[in-house]
């Protein structure tokens, strides 16, 4: 019996890499301390932690970008040290960054062999052999993309798989993936996870980093949780759940809140009527089709949808960046369809864009000047800006949205993601809007900051602010909104009250169909 069972039982996975007492200091600043964990062959180890918890520092140490101050990395029983990422790659450790490092003007084949071109003696590149190997790799990954396809013609998800293929072509045994799903649609995430499963079966170990906790839990075998540079927990998948991770990440129980109540909602503040928005890419198609939506003062509406559902396009149109092809947008019963962005802001309609680096922040301006950017006229007297009035405004904004900063003069780059997001929100709130629309306000910010942002929105609603925000995380639909709308293919496909379940929302979004 015993003998029988031992053959059935899977042999305990073997440790391929161990981090032993890893410590990292930047000058006098301690960024990592006493980090100890193992990476097993053919298994996924996920690093959890808020922004600034030390995940990226740890990742950079493991991949040879920076060196640890103390402690050692043991690879297959031997202590190793890397002086550069190529050292780590030579030992089979490859990192795939969030911003992919592909040359989009080159094809798949050239990207896979970039910098390590196969040659036929005399220095001429053996394109045929490269193409053959590239094709094999892509087939292995179940993504049969032709090796001569230009990378810029691929979807982000496919590009990611090309990166993985490149890593595999270097015989990587450990793959570090930084936020690989942040730009992927649900279907693409599915594909990626299948690839991850394949890689595991091949004995490749994966170090996974994600803000999307639920998603990461689906594929991880081990969890390492970091908080403020210290490893707070390390456990196998079977011992943990979402609450466990969050508890160790934030160190306190967190709650995204519930719909604010105890006050009367006002009249309709924003009314979108039969809105059509044509697709730039395909003539005659609409990205938003016959969409109507009324939001009352003091109401919080959440729009849930997958990527490509038309949420961003809808919000950018409402804010005035793009013009609708048909339909009206009414703000406090005034048609604002022909107003530009500045006029809409003046009338009280503001947008917090999805990509804060690209659309939200001016990196060359200080925290304070970013905050005051949308309301310069409020502190301008006789054509000149008043620095005292501005400072007053900035300080009250920093205070109101709880930005952790050394003051208005600090560089915007010195803030964490969550605080940067609060700067963008604070900037728009400083214009005293009636309606605020936010595109994925929780993207790329940690749980604590997310809860704070939602609290801010609740407070705003209590004061009569109409709030519309979009999200791709179902858990957020069940927090503060009074109403949950599901958007799919440019239309609103369902509307729910707060008591709705996650499954109902996901079903209405077409997610289960994709799955």
């Amino acid at each position, binding site marked *: 019996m015993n003998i029988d069972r031992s053959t059935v039982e899977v042999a305990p996975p073997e440790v391929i890499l161990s981090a032993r007492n890893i410590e990292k*200091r*930047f*000058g*006098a*600043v*301690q*960024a990592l*301390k*006493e980090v*100890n*964990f*193992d990476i097993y062959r053919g298994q996924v180890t996920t690093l959890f932690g808020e922004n*600034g918890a030390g995940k990226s520092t740890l990742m950079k140490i493991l991949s040879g970008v920076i060196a640890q101050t103390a402690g050692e990395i043991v690879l297959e029983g031997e202590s190793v040290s890397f002086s550069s990422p190529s050292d780590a790659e030579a030992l089979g450790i490859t990192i795939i960054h969030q911003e992919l490092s592909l040359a989009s003007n080159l094809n798949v084949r050239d990207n896979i062999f970039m910098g390590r071109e196969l040659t036929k003696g005399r220095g001429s590149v053996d394109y045929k052999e490269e193409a053959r190997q590239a094709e094999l790799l892509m087939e292995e990954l179940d993504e049969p993309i032709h090796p001569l396809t230009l990378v810029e013609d691929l979807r982000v998800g496919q590009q990611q798989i090309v990166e993985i293929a490149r890593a595999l072509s270097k015989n990587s045994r450990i793959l570090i993936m930084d936020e690989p799903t942040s730009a992927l649609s649900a279907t693409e995430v599915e594909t990626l996870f299948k690839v991850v499963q394949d890689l595991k079966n091949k004995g490749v170990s994966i170090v996974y980093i994600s803000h999307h906790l639920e998603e990461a839990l689906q594929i991880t075998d081990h969890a390492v949780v970091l908080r*403020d*540079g*210290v*490893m*707070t*927990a*390390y*456990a196998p998948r079977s011992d943990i759940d979402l609450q466990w991770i969050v508890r160790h990440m934030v*160190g*306190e129980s967190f709650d995204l809140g519930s719909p604010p109540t105890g006050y009367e909602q006002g009249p309709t503040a924003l009314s979108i009527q039969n809105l059509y928005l044509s697709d730039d890419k395909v003539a005659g198609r609409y990205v938003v089709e016959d969409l109507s939506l009324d939001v009352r003062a003091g109401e919080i509406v959440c729009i849930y949808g997958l990527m490509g559902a038309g949420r961003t396009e809808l919000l950018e149109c409402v804010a005035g*960046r793009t013009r609708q092809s048909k339909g009206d947008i009414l703000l406090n019963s005034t048609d604002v369809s022909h107003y*530009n*962005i*500045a006029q809409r*802001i*003046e009338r009280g309609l503001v*947008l917090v*864009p999805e990509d804060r680096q*690209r*659309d*939200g*922040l*001016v*990196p*060359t*301006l200080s925290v304070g*000047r970013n905050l005051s*950017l*949308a309301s*310069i*006229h409020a502190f*301008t007297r006789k*054509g*000149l*800006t008043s620095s005292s009035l501005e400072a007053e405004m900035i300080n009250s904004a920093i205070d109101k949205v709880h930005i*952790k*900063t*050394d003051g208005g003069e*600090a*560089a915007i*780059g*010195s*803030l*964490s993601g969550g605080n940067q997001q609060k700067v963008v929100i604070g*900037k*728009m709130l400083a*214009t005293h809007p009636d309606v605020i629309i936010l595109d994925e306000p929780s993207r790329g910010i940690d749980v604590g900051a997310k809860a704070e942002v939602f609290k801010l929105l609740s407070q705003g609603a209590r004061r009569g602010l109409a709030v519309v925000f979009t999200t791709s995380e179902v858990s957020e639909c069940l927090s503060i909104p009074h109403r949950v709308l599901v958007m799919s293919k440019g239309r609103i496909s369902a509307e729910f009250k707060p008591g709705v379940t996650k499954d109902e929302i996901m079903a209405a979004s077409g997610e289960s169909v994709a799955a």
Partner: protein
Amino acid sequence: MSYQNMSHHNNNALQVEKGSIDIVKILLEGRAFFALIVIIIVFSMLSPVYFSTGNFLTMSSHVAVFGLLGIGMLFVILTGGIDLSVGSTLALCGVFAGMLLEGVEIEAFNLAFFPSVWVVVVLTCLLGGLVGAINGVLVAYFKVPAFVATLGMLYVARGAALLLTDGLTFNSLSGDPALGNTGFEWLGFNKLFDIPVGVLILFCAAVICMLALSRTPFGRWIYSTGGNARAAELSGVPVNRVKLSVYIISGVCAALAGIVLASQLTSAGPTAGTTYELTAIAAVVIGGASLMGGRGTVRNTLLGAFVIGFLADGLVIIGVSAYWQMVFTGSVIVFAVMLNNVQYSAKHKSSQQAEKTAEIKREGSRASAT
């Protein structure tokens, strides 16, 4: 494996090195100023005539032309653009002013029209503004890359200047007391309170522009447009109007420079100011502005213009050949840009440091809260 809890936190990391006064940083930030000092000291040692009020004033009136062009260029560069047409615009405006001073004959009515100097100045500035407006419309509304749009204008304006004069130079800019259009030389040649009028024009323009950049909403719009046009637009900044405006400002500055130069030389030629656009860009860059936009000040651009002007004139005074002058000036420009990179990457590093500090502070506050 090893499970560690909060008690392991230690806040010793709070003691981030404040550092004593960082000399390297001061030298780096004030480098245009220090470069100017070094230039003055070196040439004063090499030549007995360099260090004198008279020479400084002469050199400053040379700087006036580059300074005016540089200030206009700064506005454009702050938005992330470039204006290659200012040298040609300067020439076009110069000959336009010369033409007006010689009198405009309207043959159909058999009338000759001699505008007074102030009218000439205003009309010339309007022409400069118009040239800039064409650049601005091309860049802001037709989305032509600034480099290409203003490169085209470099040729067009130069061609127009040559067409206006048939390739000749206007030499009689003094006007005629009988016609009431005298006094043009006064602008570049004469002195007011012992200072060349051209230099005073430069400083007036500089003060106005400084105020516009640092104290008006328009100035803030320029910096934000250059820093991140998309974010600026979504914050209600009229990005296209800002871009149009900066090219108009650059055009007007070029017109002013053209007037000053023509007045200094008492002649207006269609080939004046060739390659001055590059000198203007150099002044802006030496002043530490970023060609990517969003960073730079009028004060530093002026310093940049003085560095170039005082260096060039110094080399002339000590008798260095014109060929070597070009080599020196070129080296200074490249060196300046190199220092810009050092400065910005240093800033980047210090902001990363600050991020770590903030992180540690958060840790501290959280620990004390629990």
